[in-house]
């Protein structure tokens, strides 16, 4: 499965890119996180503390156990600070 990944705020800064396209067999967001973290230290650093992280699947907030079947875009970012 091909996914577009996008990163924001300090997640973007730690990973070093604003987004990328990946091929993955991950079934859930959590599996994707584990796969990326195993790949390179910068991902492991960005994803070290999942409680400090939020994710969205196809631009909707999601849990880390959300399934990826049919997804096109997954985003990772810290808790939001709008307003």
């Amino acid at each position, binding site marked *: 499965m091909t996914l577009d990944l*996008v990163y*924001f*705020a*300090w997640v*973007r800064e730690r990973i070093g890119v604003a987004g990328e396209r990946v091929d993955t067999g991950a079934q859930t967001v959590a599996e994707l996180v584990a796969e990326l973290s195993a790949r390179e230290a910068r991902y492991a650093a960005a994803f070290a503390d999942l409680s400090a992280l939020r994710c*969205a699947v196809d*631009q*909707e*907030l999601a849990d880390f156990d959300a399934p990826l079947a049919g997804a096109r875009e997954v*985003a990772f*970012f*810290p*808790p*939001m*600070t*709008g*307003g």
Partner: protein
Amino acid sequence: MDVRVQESGFDFGAEAAAFAAGRRDAGAVVTFTGIVRDDGGDLREMLIEHYPGMTERAITAIAGEAATRWALDGVLVIHRHGRMTPGEMIMMVATAARHRADAFAAAEFLMDYLKSRAPFWKKEITAHGAAWVAATVSDEAALGRW
């Protein structure tokens, strides 16, 4: 419902006046405006990053939820992204309703959800460097009351 996500500044007075103008059915209009605050006196600028596409979608969903919960005659949300300096306005919401309780509750609800559920991230640039603003426990807790 009027939702705008933009980099440029906005004219709060003109927007508030236009929102309130000509409302013969709504007796109550509430506005909220967020301003870049310079607590320590050394803030040079604030940088707001957002998630294009999801931002408009999330704000529209939040405004729609407000419209189902309260009897509203109008909702306006303007939220900026990009660079701004202390004293500049970051965003505003406005609500119109027949009764003031609805207008107040909807405006507070919108603010609580925009704070924690709309994809914006603030970074403060001071003389000493740059730092991402951390989400606060109280902002997350504020959602619990709705």
